[in-house]
């Protein structure tokens, strides 16, 4: 091929990049391996995870994935991570994106959704950047980022936005409730705040007073970014209906619908907004239209926001989407329907309440916060939570997330989650193992 295109060596293709900017070798990246060796290595790594009984959530949630989801996703017609370059030639892909957007917009009670982003953390970062573009009267680029937002998401949001001049400012939580006290926002009253992030449920599993926080933001001229778990929306008020007038932007991770935990990814970020902000939304948007003969069809729309047209002034450098995971999430949501999603949400909520009761019946264990949680909650143990997590790993149980890793004030606190995948026998096994670990 090099002969054919008149290039002497592969390296000549990179002549445009100055020598000083090139890296000859990537540290820690091993040499190529034959397929057989790769399969063996990957298999061994996967087996090392075992098949533990899992009670960790902390941003990624184990739900039952019906067999048709991945059987359909892996069909040749749609087995691709990419938006096709000649998008309109792939009507099936565009229709899936359109259906996905419709479901995400519906779940969030927002006007419009994009075709997805990488995962929840970068979706939140993009939402912050979008808020700064959308709020033209605000000059401060200050975003209130409560400490109850997933710490990994906060870290990613900071890494992506700080170089672009955004100032993410912490809002403390009330240690008794594990929620933001809306009164604590009064310290920012009268200041130029571009937006506030409202996590629902928050990282502790607790339900924030989303209505009060939304009303405060409206009254103080700040936009509202909702960071939500899509499964919870089957039961909780959607961001579009919070407070007076709802949130401006909703984002999160659609992983709980059809995407396996897979040791941390790939997942799928979602983002939806009110129509007035749509031109500031990053990412692709599929639309429905009719062709010159009046036949309904699908198309990519509002492309003038994107970098292939707007160049340096595009709303974002994100021009791809998580096509494969979107397909899985769309099929999973379609199979569940609103009723199925409600059943999963309530079963998870009920199971976590049962689990909390069983754990708190063990001497020395107590709820960390008031009982206002969705499907995840923190309990305080009589000793360091990370030690207990290590102990239970020997019983093939993933006990939960040791909060002390991110919140030093909660060294003894364990964040646990029991979705609809857990039986009463599973909950009992966990409680017994935990009681034993504490003796």
């Amino acid at each position, binding site marked *: 091929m090099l002969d054919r295109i008149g290039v002497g060596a592969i390296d000549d293709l990179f002549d445009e990049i100055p020598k000083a900017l090139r890296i000859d070798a990537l540290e820690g990246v091993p040499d190529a391996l034959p397929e057989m060796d790769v399969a063996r290595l990957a298999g061994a790594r996967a087996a090392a995870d075992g098949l533990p009984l899992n009670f960790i959530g902390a941003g990624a949630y184990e739900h039952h994935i019906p067999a048709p989801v991945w059987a359909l996703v892996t069909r040749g017609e749609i087995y691709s991570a990419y938006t096709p370059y000649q998008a309109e030639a792939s009507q099936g892909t565009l229709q899936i994106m359109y259906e996905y957007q419709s479901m995400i917009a519906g779940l969030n009670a927002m006007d419009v959704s994009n075709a997805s982003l990488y995962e929840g953390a970068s979706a939140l970062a993009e939402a912050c950047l979008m808020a700064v573009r959308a709020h033209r*009267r605000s000059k401060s680029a200050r975003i209130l980022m409560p400490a109850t937002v997933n710490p990994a998401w906060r870290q990613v949001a900071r890494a992506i936005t700080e170089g672009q001049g955004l100032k993410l400012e912490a809002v403390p939580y009330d240690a008794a409730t594990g929620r933001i006290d809306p009164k604590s926002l009064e310290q920012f009253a009268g200041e130029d705040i571009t937006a506030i992030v409202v996590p629902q449920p928050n990282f502790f599993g607790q339900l924030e007073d989303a209505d009060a926080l939304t009303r405060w933001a409206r009254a103080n001229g700040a936009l509202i970014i909702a960071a939500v778990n899509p499964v919870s929306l089957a039961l909780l008020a959607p961001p579009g209906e919070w407070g007076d007038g709802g949130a401006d932007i909703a984002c999160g991770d659609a992983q709980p619908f059809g995407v396996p935990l897979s040791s941390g990814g790939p997942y799928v970020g979602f983002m939806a907004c009110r129509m007035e902000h749509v*031109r500031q939304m990053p990412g692709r948007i599929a639309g429905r239209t009719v062709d010159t003969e009046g036949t309904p069809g699908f198309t990519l729309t509002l*492309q*003038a*926001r994107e970098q292939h*047209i*707007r160049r340096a*002034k595009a709303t974002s450098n994100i021009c791809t989407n998580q096509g494969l995971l979107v397909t899985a999430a769309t099929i999973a949501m379609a199979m569940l329907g609103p009723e199925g999603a409600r059943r999963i949400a309530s079963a998870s909520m009920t199971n976590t309440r049962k689990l909390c009761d069983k754990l708190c019946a063990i001497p020395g264990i107590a709820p960390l916060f008031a009982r206002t949680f969705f499907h995840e909650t923190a309990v305080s143990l009589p000793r360091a939570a990370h030690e207990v997590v290590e102990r239970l790993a020997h019983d093939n149980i993933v006990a939960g997330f040791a909060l002390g890793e991110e919140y030093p004030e909660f060294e003894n606190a364990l964040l646990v989650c029991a979705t609809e995948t857990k039986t009463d026998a599973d909950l009992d096994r966990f409680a017994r193992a935990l009681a034993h670990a504490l003796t």
Partner: protein
Amino acid sequence: MSSYPADLRYTKSHEWLRTLQDGTIEVGITDHAQQALGDLVFVEVPEAGRHLAAGDACAVVESVKAASDVYSPIAGEVTSGNPKLATEPELINRDPYGAGWIMRLKPAGGAATETLDAKAYEAVAAAGG
């Protein structure tokens, strides 16, 4: 065939300027520019009170397959953006020098972008500038 009214001034970046009776300056894009862009689907106009320097990007005009910035030819404070363009961006296609005006601003003096008369601008447009 594009038209270029003789009573306006023009910029090489395809804006026109009209001095109104009260001394404020009205700015829009030329007939040549709207034809090159095609049917406009969205226009973002600046908010009243915004202070612009000459050459600042002050508005965005967007068609189905292209988007362009509009630059303020002079320094000044925006007194109003055309509110009708929010719902009727096609006004720029239909009447670029009238109902399709983009913003009005109170000049602040100081440096301005070089402006051309209709004849000189016509030559720029004809040359494909």
